[in-house]
């Protein structure tokens, strides 16, 4: 029998088997149909799916009253909120992956495990710290979550005067949080907090002692982030500037240009100041050296992941799926990302000869950060303008931090999240067009910025912008100074030059690539003993092309 005949035979057998299976299926179906109710017709186009018969038993037959029907509608309304919020939660959670790739791509191969490590561990720390302490401080007095149903357990606010809340007081240790509405809200807020907490790890990368980083993670998730967050989103004093002082709708930050990004950005600045620059970053006269990242494709992928996550970050901040403004919000988000990225690219191209991709990524992120506060309140044309300004501001910001402040921020976190976070809330105070936000913070009228006559709103935005700098930069600076005194923030010079991966984490990111480990590492770790004459790394053992002045 030839080879082709054999194949034909096998094919024929397969066909026979499949058809047999089909027949037997039909037979059993027929048998079942004979004994039970007739088989229902399928609904391939969906026109017959979803009807009165799908209501819960409490709203069927004689139970069907206006009240029971209204209950069903209410349940569905909350259901759209839950689905949209949990979708947003998943999207924003994925931004952790974006940050991990962005920060690791922008730093050197010898620190890749350490940088990745900070980006994943911050999430574990954040979940614990935020659940037990952070969330109650931030939202313990937020009141009834109207779009998520649930109960009004979060009703305790510490006030310095009537209407001037500064901290939530309910829910510590999880007390009273065992409620679907509250936990849905908790999950969504959790990933926002983690976004803020992971921003400083970029600015402090390549020299931050891991043990000190862990303490930092608890501090920001439990105390610093919730403090300012309470004032803006938890019903605290900044949100009441409208109700108490008549300043527009009070301080508004829709999805967190300041609550999340400027908080992270200015804590990053404080951390980078206290840590000091990486070895080799600045020459004796103070002129900066370039220390290129080791993996640009990784950083670009991180940027794309972040933009992807931002759909939930801004879009789901409606806290309900029934607020169709979310289409405007997401459109604005992407317009600002695009115009920010393009602006940065063209500026670098024009003034430095090439469309620097790392700065282009930063430009897109700057646009995203800046549109985060105003995305719900402005028209698409304004989002485009906000992105253009952000794309220019981020380049100015990077140069300002590096060349004027002489602070070493390896990934540009201060410029992207800090400066553009401030620009975002101010932009809200300029461009809000009065079509949205009626009832926000207990003020009936819609939100109007400067160019629509809302001077009070702009004043509230300016007060909030100053406040976040004071809290994040001041609070962060004091915390890092104290921590530095207690346990030291920075790795040793030897560890920094060798790369943090082996001394701090015990693992190399890329052990198979030549040049990723100093040549004395392998004999030690494989038990062969150091080659004669080679023991500890000398300060000048870095290769000549790895950052001048190292």
């Amino acid at each position, binding site marked *: 029998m030839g080879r082709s005949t054999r194949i034909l035979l096998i094919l024929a057998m397969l066909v026979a088997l499949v058809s047999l299976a089909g027949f037997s299926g039909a037979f059993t179906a027929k048998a079942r149909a004979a004994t039970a109710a007739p088989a229902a017709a399928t609904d391939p186009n969906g026109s017959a799916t979803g009807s009165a018969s799908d209501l819960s038993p409490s709203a069927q037959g004689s139970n069907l009253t206006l009240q029971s029907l209204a209950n069903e509608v209410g349940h569905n309304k909350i259901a759209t909120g839950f689905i949209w919020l949990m979708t947003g939660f998943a999207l924003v959670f994925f931004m952790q992956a974006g940050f991990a790739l962005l920060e690791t791509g922008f730093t050197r191969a010898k620190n890749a495990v350490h940088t990745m490590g900070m980006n994943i561990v911050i999430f574990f720390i954040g979940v614990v710290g935020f659940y037990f302490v952070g969330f109650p401080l931030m939202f313990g007095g937020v009141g009834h979550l109207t779009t998520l149903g649930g109960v009004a357990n979060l009703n305790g606010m510490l006030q310095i005067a009537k209407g001037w809340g500064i901290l939530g007081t309910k829910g510590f240790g999880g007390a009273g949080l065992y409620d679907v509405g509250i936990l849905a809200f908790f999950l969504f807020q959790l990933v926002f907090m983690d976004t803020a907490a992971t921003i400083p790890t970029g600015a402090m990368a390549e020299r931050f002692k891991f043990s000190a980083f862990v303490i930092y993670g608890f501090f920001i998730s439990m105390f610093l982030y919730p403090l300012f967050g309470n004032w803006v989103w938890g019903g605290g004093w900044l949100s009441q500037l409208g109700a108490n002082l008549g300043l527009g709708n009070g301080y508004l930050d829709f999805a967190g240009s300041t609550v999340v990004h400027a908080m992270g950005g200015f804590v990053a600045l404080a951390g980078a100041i206290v840590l000091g620059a990486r070895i080799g970053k600045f020459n004796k006269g103070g002129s*900066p*050296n*370039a*220390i*290129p*990242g080791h993996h640009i494709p990784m950083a670009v992928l991180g940027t794309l992941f972040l933009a992807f996550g931002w759909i939930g970050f801004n879009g789901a901040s409606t806290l309900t799926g029934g607020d169709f403004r979310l289409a405007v919000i997401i459109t604005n988000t992407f317009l600002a990302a695009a115009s920010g990225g393009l602006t940065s690219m063209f500026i*670098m191209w024009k*003034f*430095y*000869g*090439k469309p*620097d991709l*790392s*700065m282009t990524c930063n430009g897109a992120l700057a646009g995203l950060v800046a549109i985060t506060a105003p995305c719900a309140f402005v028209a698409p044309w304004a989002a485009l303008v906000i992105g253009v300004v952000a794309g220019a501001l981020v*380049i100015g910001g*990077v*140069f300002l931090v590096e060349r004027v402040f002489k602070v070493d921020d390896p990934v*540009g976190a201060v410029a992207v999240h800090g400066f553009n976070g401030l620009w975002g809330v101010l932009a809200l105070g300029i461009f809000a067009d009065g079509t949205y936000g009626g009832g926000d913070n207990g003020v009936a009228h819609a939100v109007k910025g400067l160019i629509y006559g809302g001077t009070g709103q702009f004043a509230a935005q300016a007060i909030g912008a100053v406040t976040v700098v004071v809290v994040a930069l001041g609070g962060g600076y004091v915390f890092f100074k104290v921590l530095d005194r207690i346990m030291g923030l920075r790795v040793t010079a030897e560890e920094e030059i060798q790369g943090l991966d082996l001394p701090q984490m015990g693992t190399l990111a890329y052990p198979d690539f030549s040049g990723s480990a100093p040549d004395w590492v392998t004999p030690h770790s494989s038990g062969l003993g150091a080659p004669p004459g080679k023991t500890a790394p000398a300060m000048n053992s870095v*290769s*000549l*092309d790895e*950052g*001048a002045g190292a």
Partner: protein
Amino acid sequence: MKKVEAIIRHIKLDEVKTALDEIGIKWMTVTDVKGAGKQKGYTEQWRGSKLNIFLNPKLELKIVVKDELVPKVIDTIMAVARTGAIGDGKIFITNVEEAVAIRTGARGEEAL
């Protein structure tokens, strides 16, 4: 026997290999190397800052041949590896005392 060590541009490897093959030299050892000559490295740009990389990546070919083949090898490499711009590389010739083929145990020119 002589050892010819030729430092060449990465992009020239295929041409050099083919040209040497045509004159009957079908063996070589190739190494990635970094070095500096008159070219003085190159300049990268990173976020608006210039970065001078002092050491240029090059390839180093090692070929051991019979003495009389050396001029032909040099001419062949020169003919294809040369672009005329700074950074074309260098050729060094040294004496080789002995050669051993590990599998057959052949010695000297027999081992090549």
